[in-house]
């Protein structure tokens, strides 16, 4: 989890070796090994997690990549929604911030 307020410059990553996932009808169960907690993710939040496990992404890059992935417009998937998902995944520890120099 980020120490202090989230910054626009943060990139976000996820270590896929730390979690297990299972899909059920567009919903995902994710077991996070460090916390031992099981999380219920919708397709969007799992999309964020998956993208960040490939390489670190900024909020803008994530929004753009997910719009392409799910064929959504900027109105349908605004950056503010991605920011909310990032914050929630950061709370769980599934995402961690990387400060880009």
């Amino acid at each position, binding site marked *: 989890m980020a120490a202090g307020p989230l910054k626009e410059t943060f990139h976000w990553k996820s270590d896929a070796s730390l979690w*297990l996932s*299972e899909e*059920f*009808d567009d*919903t*995902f*169960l994710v*077991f996070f*090994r460090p916390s*031992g*907690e*099981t999380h*219920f993710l919708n397709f969007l939040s799992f999309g964020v997690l998956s993208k960040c496990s490939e390489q670190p992404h900024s909020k803008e890059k994530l929004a753009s990549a997910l719009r392409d992935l799910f064929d959504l417009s900027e109105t349908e998937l605004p950056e503010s929604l991605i920011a909310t998902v990032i914050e929630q995944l950061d709370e769980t520890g599934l995402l961690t911030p990387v400060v880009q120099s």
Partner: protein
Amino acid sequence: MTVKLAQHNRRDIASALKKGMFTLTLGPFKHLVSGTSAPLLDYLYDTYRDYDVALKPTDVSEIILNLKAPNILRRFIRPQVSPDPGFEVPTIPLPLKMAPLAFEMGMNLSVALKCCRFVTVHAGVVANEQGAIIMSAASGSGKSTLSAALADQGYRLFSDEFALIDLEDAMLHPYPRPISLKQDSIAVVRDIVGADRISAPLSGTPKGDIAYCRVSEHDLLQAHKKAAAKLILFPRYEAGVSPMARKLNPAEAVMKLIPASTNYSLLGEPAFRAVLKLVRQAKAYELSYGTTEQSLQLIADIQASGAGR
């Protein structure tokens, strides 16, 4: 050697209980029980009459339960009894006449907090040839009544308290202890199974009036046979409500089973994998109903629709 409790001499049972040498074998557990109260002996002699017991300790016991007075004063003045499962746990001392409740509470605490070979979920479980039905609900939601009603329809009773889910293959293990009945459910289940299967009610307990329904001899003989889950139900009894069944996404079912488990967080990843296996092989539903007949009809309808076969 284990023989049925009723075949032992009552004085020998009392002596074994006093010396801590009373061993009850049931399902996957051997329980070593000690206690000295007459109400405990009466209860075991009646409600546990068909269970296999030995009057000496076995080499391996999983559950060790001592029913004792909370302090020396309460052995003699207004005697009380508390379950001691061998680890620190907050319990309420009960009047001696409530020793059966202390015994059952102690057994539940032992399984809930000490058992790590299974994922334990607070649920009633019954099974037939097609598989098992898990009914996960909070106390007072009617799962014990429903378990008793289904057992009366020919299902084998696995437990009215715990689903024991195997960590390897997610099979359910029977653990058929007497069905715990509270308040109005005592009369309901008495009407279903007959008065001879119901213990003498205990009045004024912290849970209100309580009685226990004896497990059938047939179910005890089958207590070694595991079953795969075919239905996972989340029943909710509410007087006057219209009966309704809602199918759940398996992921929703997992998220409802986790808080009902007493050891999921402790077991971690193996529990996650076992619960996934469980929900892959079964259909899950939320049930709302106002009478036992309605709940039985909902389950029959679900089965008739092809789910849970």
